[in-house]
C-alpha cells in the first residue's frame, strides 16, 4: 500500500511507476502488443476479412492454404482465414464483455457487503460462497440453455458465473480501506463519505481489480470455446474458436490445416492475455519496488 499512498513520490505517480515496472517484463509487453494488434484487427474485421465468414465455395472444399485462401478452406469451402478473424472478434467480445458483467456485479455486491457489514454482509457472502461451489461450467451450460446461444447471452452467462471472486476481492479491500488510517484521517478532517470513496477508496482498489479482470478475460474466452466444443456456444455458421476446433478435429487425419490455425491463434491469444495479466500483477502490486 505504501507507494499507493505516497502517490506523488519524487514526481512519479503510482501509474507511471507501474508502467515502468510493466515495461521491464518483456513477455508482458509482447503480449500487450499482440493484444493491441488483434483488437485493432477485430474492430476492422468486416473490411479486412477477404470473404464473409459464412460464404461457402463448394468447388473448393478442404483446400490447403493457397494464394486465394490464405489459411485454406473448411468442409463447406469457407475461407479459414476470414472465419478465424471473426472467431477472434467473437472471442474478444466475450472475453471483455463478460468481464464488464463481472465488474458490475462483483463491485456492487462486494462493496455493499464490505461497507454495510453485519447481516447483509453475511447473506451476500453466503450467496457468493454458493456461487463458488456451483460447478461453473455446468452453470454456464444451464444458463445458455435458458437464455439462448447468442453472442450477447453467452457473454452475460460467462459474467454471471464468474463474479464471485471479484465480489470477495472487493469486499476484502473495502473492509480494509474503510478503516485504514488515511481514510480515518480524511474523515477526521471532515471529508464527506462520497468524497472519501471517490478520492481514497476507489483509487486504491483499482490495481487489484484490473489484475483480476486481466486474468478473467482469457478465462471467459476459454469458457466460450469450451461451450462451443460441446455444441453450446454461438450458433453456427457464426464461427468461434471452439466450434472451429471441434469441426477441425473431425477431419484431423486428412486435413490438419483445418485445426492447426484455430488452435494456434487460440493458444497464442490465451498466452498473451495471461502474460499481460502477470505483468500487470507485478506492476500494480505496490509492494514490489522499482
Amino acid at each position, binding site marked *: 500500500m505504501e507507494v499507493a499512498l505516497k502517490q506523488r513520490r519524487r514526481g512519479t505517480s503510482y501509474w507511471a511507476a507501474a508502467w515502468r515496472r510493466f515495461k521491464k517484463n518483456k513477455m508482458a509487453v509482447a503480449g500487450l502488443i499482440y493484444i493491441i494488434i488483434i483488437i485493432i484487427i477485430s474492430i476492422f474485421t468486416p473490411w479486412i476479412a477477404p470473404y464473409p465468414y459464412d460464404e461457402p465455395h463448394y468447388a473448393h472444399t478442404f483446400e490447403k492454404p493457397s494464394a486465394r485462401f490464405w489459411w485454406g478452406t473448411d468442409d463447406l469451402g469457407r475461407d479459414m482465414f476470414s472465419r478465424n478473424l471473426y472467431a477472434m472478434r467473437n472471442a474478444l467480445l466475450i472475453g471483455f464483455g463478460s468481464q464488464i458483467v463481472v465488474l458490475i456485479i462483483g463491485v456492487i455486491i462486494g462493496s455493499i457487503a464490505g461497507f454495510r457489514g453485519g447481516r447483509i454482509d453475511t447473506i451476500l457472502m453466503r450467496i457468493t460462497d454458493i456461487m463458488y461451489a456451483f460447478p461453473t461450467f455446468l452453470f454456464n451450460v444451464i444458463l445458455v*440453455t435458458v437464455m439462448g446461444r447468442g453472442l450477447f447471452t453467452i457473454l452475460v452467462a460467462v459474467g454471471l458465473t464468474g463474479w464471485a471472486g471479484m465480489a470477495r476481492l472487493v469486499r476484502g479491500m473495502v473492509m480494509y480501506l474503510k478503516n485504514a488510517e488515511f481514510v480515518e484521517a480524511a474523515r477526521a478532517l471532515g471529508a464527506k463519505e462520497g468524497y472519501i470513496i471517490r478520492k481514497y477508496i476507489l483509487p486504491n482498489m483499482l490495481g487489484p481489480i484490473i489484475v483480476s479482470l486481466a486474468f478473467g478475460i482469457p478465462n471467459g474466452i476459454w469458457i466460450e470455446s469450451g461451450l462451443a466444443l460441446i455444441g453450446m456456444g454461438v450458433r453456427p455458421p457464426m464461427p468461434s474458436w471452439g466450434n472451429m476446433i471441434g469441426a477441425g478435429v473431425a477431419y484431423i487425419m486428412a486435413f490438419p490445416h483445418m485445426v492447426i490455425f484455430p488452435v494456434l491463434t487460440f493458444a497464442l491469444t490465451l498466452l498473451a492475455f495471461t502474460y499481460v495479466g502477470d505483468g500487470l500483477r507485478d506492476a500494480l502490486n505496490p509492494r514490489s519496488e522499482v
Partner: protein
Amino acid sequence: MGLVRYILRRLFTIFVSIVVVIIITYILMWLAPGEFFNIAQFQASGGRVATLTPEQLQVLIKGFEEKYGLNVPLWKQILNYLKDAFRFKFGPSFSNPNEPIEVQIARRFPVTFTLAILSMALAVIVGIPLGVIAALKRNTWVDYITMFFSMAGSIIPAYTIGVIMVLIFSVWLRVLPTSGWETPKQMIMPVICVALGPMAVIARFMRSSLLDVLNQDYIRTAYAKGGTDRAVIMRHALRNSLIPIVTIIGPQLAFLFTGTVWIENLFRVPGLGQLFVNAASMRDYPLLVTSTFILSLSVMLMNLLVDVIYAFLDPRIKYE
C-alpha cells in the same frame, strides 16, 4: 472444537449449499424455453409424434410427465428430487428412459475415475520434481524453461494441447491412435492431456513453496549444524514444503472430473464427461440436474477432505 464437530458442521454447510444449488438449477430449467416432453420424445422415438391423434398425444404427455414426476408443482419436484438424490437415486433420464441415471453413472464412473487417477498420479510424479528442480536452480535457464512450460500448461486448455498432440503423434509421426479407451496405447494421450494442467499447477506451487521454506530460519540452522545440501533439502525443506501441495491436489482432483469432459470428447473416451456433454446438448434435464448435483457434491467433499488432511499434516492449524 473437536474434529467430529468440525466435520459435522462442514457437512451441514455442504448439505445446505447443495440444496440451494439444486433449487437454482431447477428454477433455471423451469425458465428455459420449450416443453420437456417434445425434447425427450424426439429423442426416444425419432419424430413419430406427428402420426398420433391429439388425444393419443395428450395421453402420451400425461404418461411422460408422470414417469418423470413433472405433474406436480415445481417445489414438490425439487423436494422429491432432493429426497431421492441424497440416497443416490436419480430416476431415469430423458435420453435413456429404461436405465436409471445412477446405473448409467456407475457404468461410466470407472473410466473417468481411472483417467483422473492416472493423470493425477502422473501430475504429482512429474510436477513435484519439476518444481523442486526449478526452485533449486532458480533464475537459471532450467528454471525459466520449466516455468514457461508450466505457465503454458496451465493456461492453454487441455483440449487444445490434446489437438496439438494428436497432430504430432497421430497425424505426423503416426505412433499413437487418435481415439479410444481399450489399449494402454490409446490411454497415453488422454492421460497426458488431463495431467498437464494439474502438473503445471503443482510444479509452480512446489517451486514457490520450496523457495519459501528455504528462506526459513530452521533451514539456516540445519546448514549451520553442518548439514549437506542433500540432507537439508531432503530431510528438512522438502517435507515441509509438501504441505501446501496437498491443498491444491484435492481441488485439482475434483476439478479433473469436469476437466476430463473435453478430453473424453476429443479422444472418445466413454466416461462421465460424455454423459454430461450429452445431457447438455440434448437438453436432458434430469441428467443435467444430476450432473450438477454430483459435481458440486464431489468438489465440496474433496475440499473438506483436504482441509482435514491439511490439519493433520500441519499441527499449527486449528479447526474453527
